[in-house]
């Protein structure tokens, strides 16, 4: 009897003792350099396989940003499975915000644990973590913050250094977010990234840093960095004869520093081969086509981009290449008052794209058109003939590379409308800045939502 009476409390005492143990079962908590490197390899594998939407991007990301921009004309035809305008994507955009943080969390785990380790693998993994985190912050800064105006008083992003389930970080200022992101790229560069299995080499990280400087209108620093890249990258602008080959190539070719989806045996190949047709379901708008002039076939970009029905035939790609650096340099020079240098950059690019083209001079630049969507520059000033020429080349060059939406955002956030199913939908100014995740706002009362979504 006594034994039985003793057994009951013992049984009760030993049962259920692990119910509060939330440690995942069957997972390895990383400790070695190799294990931390695996965390970054998983992210890099997604870039190379085409699954990544948050670092370099993929075809899904392009489908979104080319759909809501205006290079393809939704007023002529809405197209299959392309979003019509930004307003219809606000809920997928706020959800997208939450997914960015999964990558930040991975980077923070690596940064927190590998900082101070001296092996080559640890340093290269750390360099990749800083580069990936910097790129993710740059992407979020473009999508979820207003364009650069009065940065110390504009909303930026939460600056998160370590994973904390109880943390409720509020948004920093845009200025602080820029400096934080810049610092991430600088830390990556200080570790001498070599690329290879870690993907991000010195040139790629510099190019990503240049994009940040350019977006945040640090013209002088951006110009200096772009010049450094042009001088040291060991590449030249791909000539017209090699342009098509470069665009169609699975791996980085010619002037391309980096691109996503280079693994041509990715499990997503079937998916991309299917959705690529969506891009060709809406024709290019006339304002883009007119930029190619009276003899558009002389421009290799026209030949590679459009079929006889103005439908897209350029392979949509996310990456970074020398021409973008040259175009950034041209615009930086313009804002720094170096018109001749800006023109030199532009002519260098045009000579490699258009058969028999003659150099533009300040005297021969076409007058500013009326009726264009962009009417003011990033500084709020009126467009000049030189800046218009830079914008035109950028639009032709980076067509189908996810750039146009951000060009519109950077230069005045113009409003325009489309008619779909008998109703008019306007891309209003506030829609250029996507909403942050609503559940974060509901949970954290210090988290301020972007204007227009309260």
């Amino acid at each position, binding site marked *: *009897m006594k034994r*039985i009476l003793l057994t009951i409390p013992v049984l009760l005492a030993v049962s*259920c003792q692990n119910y509060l143990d939330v440690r995942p079962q069957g997972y390895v908590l990383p400790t070695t350099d190799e294990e931390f490197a695996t965390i970054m390899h998983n992210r890099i594998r997604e870039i190379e396989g085409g699954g990544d939407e948050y670092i370099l991007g993929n075809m899904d990301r392009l489908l979104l940003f080319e759909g809501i921009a205006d290079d393809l004309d939704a*007023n002529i035809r809405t197209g299959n499975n392309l979003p019509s305008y930004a307003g219809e994507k606000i809920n997928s955009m706020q959800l997208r915000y939450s997914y960015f943080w999964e990558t930040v969390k991975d980077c923070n785990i690596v940064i927190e644990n590998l900082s101070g380790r001296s092996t080559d693998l640890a340093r290269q993994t750390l360099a990749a973590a800083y580069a990936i985190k910097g790129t993710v912050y740059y992407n979020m800064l473009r999508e979820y913050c207003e364009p650069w105006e009065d940065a110390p008083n504009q909303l930026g992003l939460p600056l998160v250094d370590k994973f904390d389930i109880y943390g409720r970080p509020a948004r920093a200022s845009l200025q602080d977010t820029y400096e934080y992101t810049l610092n991430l790229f600088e830390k990556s560069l200080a570790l001498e990234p070599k690329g290879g299995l870690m993907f991000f080499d010195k040139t790629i990280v510099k190019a990503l840093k240049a994009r940040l400087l350019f977006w945040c209108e640090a013209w002088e620093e951006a110009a200096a960095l772009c010049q450094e890249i042009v001088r040291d990258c060991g590449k030249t602008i791909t000539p017209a004869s090699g342009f098509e080959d470069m665009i169609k190539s699975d791996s980085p070719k010619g002037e391309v520093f980096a691109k996503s989806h280079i693994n041509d045996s990715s499990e997503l190949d079937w998916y991309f081969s299917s959705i690529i047709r969506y891009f060709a379901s809406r024709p290019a708008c006339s304002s883009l086509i007119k930029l190619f002039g009276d003899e558009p076939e002389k421009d290799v970009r026209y030949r590679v981009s459009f079929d006889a029905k103005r439908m897209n035939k350029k392979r949509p790609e996310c990456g970074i290449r020398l021409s973008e650096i040259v175009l950034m340099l041209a615009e930086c020079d313009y804002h720094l008052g170096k018109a001749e240098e800006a023109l030199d950059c532009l002519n260098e690019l045009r000579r490699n794209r258009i058969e028999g083209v003659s150099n533009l001079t300040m005297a021969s630049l076409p007058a500013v058109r009326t009726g264009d969507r962009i009417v003011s520059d990033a500084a709020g000033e009126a467009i000049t003939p030189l800046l218009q020429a830079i914008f035109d080349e950028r639009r032709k060059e980076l067509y189908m590379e996810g750039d146009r939406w951000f060009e519109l955002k950077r230069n005045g956030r113009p409003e325009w409308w489309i*008619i779909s199913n008998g*109703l*008019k939908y306007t891309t209003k100014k506030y829609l250029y800045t996507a909403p942050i995740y609503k*559940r974060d706002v509901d*949970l954290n009362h210090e988290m301020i939502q972007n204007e227009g979504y309260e």
Partner: protein
Amino acid sequence: MKAMNKKIIAILPVVMLLFIATGCKYDEKPPKTSDAASDYILPQGDLPTEAEMRAVQAARDEYESSIN
């Protein structure tokens, strides 16, 4: 004594069942803090004006003539 043990053994499963049925019934979910939906209401479209309809038709006409 044996009869007593038999009784206890017979009661034991019932006691255990009672423990299982009544124990560990705590609510693991955090308290509900808001009735708010997790989605935003999408902006609504407006009826286009005649002039806007004409502008769209002009864009379509321009397109048709450019490809034919």
